């Protein structure tokens, strides 16, 4: 995109010595230079991040190798470190968050952009964006003092309806994978709602009118024309939500129970990668311990890329099928 724009002023019929400055005067060249360095900076920061994580985790990588990913033991006293319980906790809580937040968020976005009267839509959108600006420690406090007691109250209901599933068994103390997933869902909702709403609003009116002209009802035009048109943007909002959920630290550590065990039940406590790094890094002594925590950071980075990649692939295949 950027290249042809940049070259336009650089290709006058007669090349003069001053053409470069003429380009500067026009503003295109500096704009190109400035924006490309902005883009390069992002790539640079990412590369630097991976490099630093990789180099500083050398001690742990050499000692444990690939076993680091599959070991369930985290014992700072014995110097045994494994990432599996943390990977599990991160993935499960993020997945739960998306399962709750995606239908809610997309539904709310459709209402706000298509069905709600403009004044209601504007007020609600303002509130949603306000929600996105709340610091995560506040969500954490809310989770500890409001969400956890609430979940304990509705637990018997959940158990009687879904208790036959292995995911809703065992004792429930409130502080659990379940609580972490729910608070994450609340935290990522504003991202899904506000971006999806923007995307839905950007769908050309022609599309809606064309559908209506063909005899579609309001809902049919919304569900069968507008939403599919905005699918890419909605997917983008879900990716952003996923990224936030995977990396969220403070609110998660306050309610997840911080117990590095793998259990099938969502009622059991767990641990996430970001949470253990935040919890143990300051007091970690010795090269192997610190290096293992840094390697966990590297694992989180790889996990984010992997999950995003799989999700994108999934979208790509389903979209193709949908279009043909």
């Amino acid at each position: 995109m950027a290249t042809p724009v940049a070259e336009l002023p650089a290709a006058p019929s007669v090349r003069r010595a001053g053409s470069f400055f003429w380009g500067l005067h026009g503003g295109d060249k500096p704009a190109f230079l400035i924006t490309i360095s902005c883009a390069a900076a992002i790539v640079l920061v990412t590369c630097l991040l991976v490099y630093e994580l990789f180099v500083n985790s050398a001690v742990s990588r050499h000692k444990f190798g690939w076993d680091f990913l599959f070991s369930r033991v985290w014992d700072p006293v014995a110097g045994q470190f494994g990432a599996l319980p943390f990977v599990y906790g991160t993935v499960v809580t993020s997945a739960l968050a998306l399962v709750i937040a995606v239908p809610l968020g997309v539904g709310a976005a459709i209402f706000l952009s298509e069905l709600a009267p403009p004044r209601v839509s504007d007020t609600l959108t303002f509130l949603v964006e306000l929600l996105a600006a709340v610091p995560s420690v506040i969500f954490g406090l809310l989770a500890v003092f409001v969400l956890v007691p609430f979940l304990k109250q509705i637990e018997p209901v959940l158990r009687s309806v879904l208790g036959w599933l292995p995911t809703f068994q065992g004792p429930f103390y409130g502080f659990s994978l379940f609580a972490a997933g729910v608070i994450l869902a609340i935290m990522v909702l504003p991202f899904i709602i506000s971006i999806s709403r923007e995307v839905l609003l950007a769908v050309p009116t022609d599309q809606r009118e064309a559908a209506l002209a063909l005899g579609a009802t309001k809902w049919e035009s919304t569900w069968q024309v507008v939403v599919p048109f905005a699918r890419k943007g909605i997917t983008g909002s879900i990716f952003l939500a996923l990224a936030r959920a995977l990396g969220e630290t403070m609110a998660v550590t306050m309610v997840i129970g911080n117990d590095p065990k793998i259990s099938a039940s969502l009622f059991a406590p767990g641990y996430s990668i970001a949470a253990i790094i935040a919890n143990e890094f300051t007091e970690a002594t010795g090269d192997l311990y610190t290096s293992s925590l840094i390697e966990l950071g590297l694992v989180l980075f790889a996990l984010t890329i992997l999950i995003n990649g799989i999700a994108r692939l999934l979208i790509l295949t389903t979209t193709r099928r949908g279009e043909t």
Partner: protein
Amino acid sequence: MKMTMTKIARAACLAGVMAAAGVVSAEVLMNGAGATFPNPMYSKWFDQYHKLHPEIQINYQSIGSGGGIKQITEGTVDFGASDGPMNDEQIKQFKEKRGTNILHFPTVLGADVPAYNVPGVATDLNFTPEALAGIFLGKITKWNDPELVKANPKAKLPGNDIVVVHRSDGSGTTYVWVDFLSKVSPEWKTKVGTATSVNWPVGLGGKGNEGVAGQIRQIPNSIGYIELVYAVQNKISYGRVRNPSGSFVKADLASVTAAAAGAAKAMPDDFRVSITNAPGKTAYPIATFTWLLIPDKIQDGAKKKVLIDFLHWMLGQGQMSVEALDYAQLPKQVVAKELKAITKIQ
């Protein structure tokens, strides 16, 4: 971002001090970092000391004991602070990197207390070391376990499952607790061990004292450990623990100082001593010193003078203001021994 901001601020401060140094040559700025537990005390001390000597500014960052040991080893601060003594490996590293020895100076005392939430039990519970080890190992799982009933004949203990709560963040508070458990339970020593974070056999983790206290409050039939200072200031009730003399002692400033006095007779010259399970009839068994870490050779003459003077002040005048902040004072024998040790700083 925050890091850079502090760096910039520090650089600006330094520049300011340097500029001022041109006019008043006695200006001294010192930096320390480490343990969070004694931070309120240290902040107050450094503030009081600054008022006595306006030309001296001592900054303290409470980044955690592990961080304090790391920073003093790297030489990025003038002194460190830790809730657990440096181990031999860490001292070896320090000697290799800095080419000099490190000295430990006890400053105040702290203690851990067992806090619990058992519906229907209003009195303070008694805990034997065996009961605490059993609970935290996951072997004693019910509140009406014979070991608990034996120590609390009057309390109506329910038959509910015990929920264990521990710290999730690495902490000196954890270090003291598991150090005690290691001393009283051979099984704990071999299976779990002593460190600022351990591989807990059972339980939920809470971040910080407030995290543990919050979980205990919300989960019926739970038990956890918190710092004495935090429990006192937040009016959280806690239980008594049996000491080696066989009496159940409730943690307070006097019983914590008594534990240190009991350990003072056997105090090694480098002050690296654990006072958990200390002898003495009134001694509380889960107590600890917290230390300042100071290199024994300091190049900068002005800084050396300030540190030596501060240590003298802290051991004399400074100890007077300790109890106002709910910390326990050092026993006299320890103060006397430390005053001698100050002469090692060259």
